C-alpha cells in the first residue's frame, strides 16, 4: 500500500505542472526574472479603468518597468484564474483581493509575507495606514498583503429624486425605522405616487422606483446585527458557527427579510434578475442602495441626476463592516523585486492619491484619505467623509479559509428568505446547520 502511495505521489509530482509542484519542491523561487509584472484584478469596467490609470501613472514615472494588468470578469473568475495559474506554475506576481477571500491562499502558503520588505521600505510605513485594514491582512503574525482601501457600507441615494418628492434626505444617526419609512416613501409608481411594492408580485402595478436596494447576504446583514449588539459568529477569532439565533441578530435578520415581504420596498427577485441593483440605481429606478465604495466609480458616470452617500442606519450603536482589498504577492511569482516596486508605489501616498482620484477607493493611507484627492468636492459623492466617519466603528468579518463557501451557502439561504419568505426559524436553523461543517473544515490566522 505504501509503495502504491509513493508511486502515485511520484506520478502526480511528475505530471502536475510546476505550480502544484511547489509542493513537490517548495517555493516558486526567489530567483529574479525579467519580464512584466502581472497584476490580477477584477471589477466593473469603470474600476478596471481606475487600475489602468494607476498602472499608466507608474509606467510614466518608471519607464521600462512593465506592469501587465490581467482583468478577471468577477471575483469567482479571479479566484479560478489565480488558483489555476498557481497550479500551472505561472502565478501572477501580484493580485488584488478582499480580506474575506485571501485566507484560503494564506493558509496554503501561496502568499509571500511582506514584513521584511516593509521594514526596508522608505515609501511604506505601517503607522501611516488605518490599523483595521492592516490587521485584516495579518496572518499568523505576518503582514501578507498591503491594503489599498478601507471602505465600508454606505447608503447611496438619488438626491434629485428625494428633492423631487420632498422626502427628507438620509442623515447621520438615522435609525432602521427611518430607513424603512424613507424607503416606503420613495417607492413610487410611474405617476410618482407612493405605492406599496408588495402588490407587484405576480399582478397589479409594479413600482417604477423602489425605495431601497440591498443584497441578501451575510456581509450586508452583519453590520446591522453588530449595530443591534448581536454577533454573527460565536468567536470572531476562531468561529465554529453562525449565531444568528441570538435575539438581536434574529431581529436584524427579520427586519431585513421584511423589506421585501412585508413592505415591498426592495425589488423582487424577478426584478433583480432583470436588472441588478447597481444598474437600477444608475438608471434612476432605485432611490437608495446599500453598497461599498466600489459603486462610486460606476455611479460617477451618471449624468441624469445628482446622488450622494449617507451613513448606515443605526440600531443601538453605530457599526459598519470593513470592505478592504489588498495587493498580495504570490510566493511562486517570478519577478518579485519588480512586483514589490509596483506594490510599494500602489499603496504609497502617491499611488493611493491616483487611485483615490478615480473614485475607486477610500484610501487606506490615513493622510491620503483626508486629502483633497479623496475629499475634494470636484466629483461626487459630496459627502465622501461619510466613509471616513464610519472607519471608527467598522469591524472585519472573521478570517477563515472556507469563507468563500460560507458566503455562497448563506447567500442562497438569505436570498430565499428575502424573496420566497422562508420561515425565520428555518432560515436561522439552515444557516447554522449548513455552515457548521464549513467552519469545522476552515483554518484560521491565529
Amino acid at each position, binding site marked *: 500500500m505504501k509503495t502504491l502511495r509513493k508511486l502515485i505521489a511520484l506520478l502526480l509530482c511528475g505530471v*502536475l505542472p510546476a505550480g502544484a509542484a511547489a509542493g513537490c519542491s517548495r517555493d516558486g523561487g526567489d530567483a529574479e526574472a525579467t519580464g512584466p509584472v502581472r497584476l490580477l484584478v477584477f471589477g466593473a469596467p469603470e474600476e478596471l479603468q481606475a487600475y489602468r490609470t494607476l498602472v499608466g501613472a507608474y509606467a510614466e514615472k518608471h519607464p521600462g518597468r512593465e506592469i501587465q494588468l490581467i482583468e478577471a470578469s468577477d471575483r469567482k473568475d479571479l479566484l*479560478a484564474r489565480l488558483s489555476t495559474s498557481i497550479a500551472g506554475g505561472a502565478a501572477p506576481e501580484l493580485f488584488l483581493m478582499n480580506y474575506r477571500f485571501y485566507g484560503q491562499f494564506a493558509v496554503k502558503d501561496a502568499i509571500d509575507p511582506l514584513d521584511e520588505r516593509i521594514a526596508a521600505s522608505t515609501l511604506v510605513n505601517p503607522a501611516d495606514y488605518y490599523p483595521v485594514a492592516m490587521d485584516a491582512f495579518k496572518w499568523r503574525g505576518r503582514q501578507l498583503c498591503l491594503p489599498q482601501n478601507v471602505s465600508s457600507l454606505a447608503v447611496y441615494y438619488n438626491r434629485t429624486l428625494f428633492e423631487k418628492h420632498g422626502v427628507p434626505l438620509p442623515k447621520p444617526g438615522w435609525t432602521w425605522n427611518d430607513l424603512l419609512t424613507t424607503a416606503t416613501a420613495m417607492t413610487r409608481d410611474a405617476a410618482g405616487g407612493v405605492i406599496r411594492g408588495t402588490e407587484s408580485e405576480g399582478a397589479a402595478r409594479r413600482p417604477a422606483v423602489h425605495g431601497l436596494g440591498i443584497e441578501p447576504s451575510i456581509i450586508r446583514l452583519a453590520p446591522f446585527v453588530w449595530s443591534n449588539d448581536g454577533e454573527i459568529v460565536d468567536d470572531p477569532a476562531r468561529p465554529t458557527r453562525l449565531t444568528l439565533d441570538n435575539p438581536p441578530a434574529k431581529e436584524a435578520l427579520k427586519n431585513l427579510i421584511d423589506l421585501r415581504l412585508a413592505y415591498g420596498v426592495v425589488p423582487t427577485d424577478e426584478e433583480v434578475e432583470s*436588472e441588478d441593483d447597481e444598474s437600477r440605481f444608475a438608471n434612476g429606478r432605485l432611490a437608495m442602495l446599500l453598497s461599498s465604495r466600489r459603486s462610486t466609480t460606476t455611479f460617477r458616470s451618471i449624468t441624469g441626476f445628482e446622488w450622494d452617500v449617507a451613513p448606515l442606519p443605526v440600531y443601538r450603536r453605530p457599526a459598519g463592516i470593513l470592505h478592504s482589498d489588498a495587493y498580495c504577492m504570490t510566493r511562486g511569482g517570478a519577478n518579485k523585486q519588480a512586483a514589490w516596486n509596483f506594490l510599494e508605489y500602489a499603496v504609497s501616498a502617491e499611488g493611493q492619491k491616483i487611485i483615490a482620484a478615480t473614485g475607486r477607493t477610500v484610501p487606506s493611507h490615513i493622510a491620503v484619505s483626508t486629502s483633497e484627492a479623496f475629499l475634494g468636492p470636484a466629483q461626487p459623492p459630496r459627502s465622501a467623509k461619510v466613509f471616513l466617519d464610519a472607519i471608527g466603528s467598522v469591524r472585519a468579518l472573521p478570517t477563515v479559509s472556507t469563507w468563500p463557501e460560507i458566503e455562497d451557502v448563506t447567500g442562497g439561504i438569505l436570498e430565499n428568505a428575502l424573496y420566497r419568505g422562508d420561515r425565520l426559524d428555518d432560515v436561522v436553523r439552515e444557516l447554522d446547520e449548513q455552515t457548521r461543517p464549513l467552519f469545522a473544515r476552515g483554518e484560521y490566522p491565529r
Partner: protein
Amino acid sequence: MRRDRGRRQLALLLAPYVLGLVVLVLAPFAVTLALAFTEYDLIRPPVWTGTDNLTALADDPVFRTALVNSLLFGAVAVPLRMLVALGLALLLHRRTAAAGTARTAAVLPTAVPEIAYGLLWLWLLNPLYGPISQILRVGGENGLTAFGRTPPQWLTDPVDARAAIILMSLFTVGETFVILLAARRALPADVYELAALEDATAWDVLRRITLPLIAPVLGLLLIRDAIQSLQFSFVPALIVTDGGPPPYATTYVPLFAYRNAFEYLRYGYAAAATLLMLLLTVAAVALQWRLLRRYGRFHLR
C-alpha cells in the same frame, strides 16, 4: 513489404491523434483518477486520503442534489434532443427550395461559441425585458399571460430554471441533426416506393420503415448524447442561472466539480465527483448498449 509500408503510413497518420488523445485526454484522466483519492488544493502537494473523498461525497447534500439534477437533465434532455434532431432530419431531408437555408439554420446554434450562446440566452430569458417573456405576455395584463397566468420564472423558479437549461440544450443539436439527415438520405428509395404502392400511411412509413432502418444510427447517437449530456449543462448553469435559483436548482455535477476545484480549492474532492460522474456515465451507456443489443437481436430474428 507493401503491407508493412501501409501499416507504417497508417501509424503515421494516426500518430497525431493518438498523441493528442494520450496527452490531452488519457493522461489528465489518469491524474484526475489518482487525485480523487487525495486531498489536493492546487497549491500544496496532494496528500493520499484513500476513499475519504468518496465517503464525504456520499454525505454531501449539495453533491446529491447536483447528481439528481444531472440525472434528471440527462433523462429529459437526451430524448428531447434526439426527437428534435430526428424531427428536423425527417422534415428537411428532401431537396426543396428552402431546405438548404433551413438546414443551415438548424445547425447554426451549434456553431455559436458556448459562452456567447449562454449570454444570448441570458438576455432571451430576462424575466422582464427578455423577448421570450415579452412574447408570453402579449395579450395579458399586469405582467400576466393572455391566459391570466404568470409566465415562466426562468431565472427565479427552480422548476422553470431547470426547464430553461433543457430548452437551451434543444437548439444545439446540429451534429446529431447532420448525422441523422445523412442517415435518412442514405435509406434506399425503393423501400419507400414500395410502401407508397401499398398505400402505407406516413405513420406506418415512419414506424415500420424509417425508424427500424435508422435505428442503429439513432442508438449510437443516443449513447453519444447521453455521454455528452452531463457536459451540456455546464456553461448554461454557470452563465445563465449560476447554479440557482437557490439553493442548488441548476447545480449539476460539472458545475459542482468546477466550484469545488477552482473556487474552493478542493481539487481532490472535485476529482472524486468527476470520477463518480464518469462511472455513472459508463453505467448509463452500458445499460443503453444492453438494451440496444437486445433490440437488435429481436429485429434480426
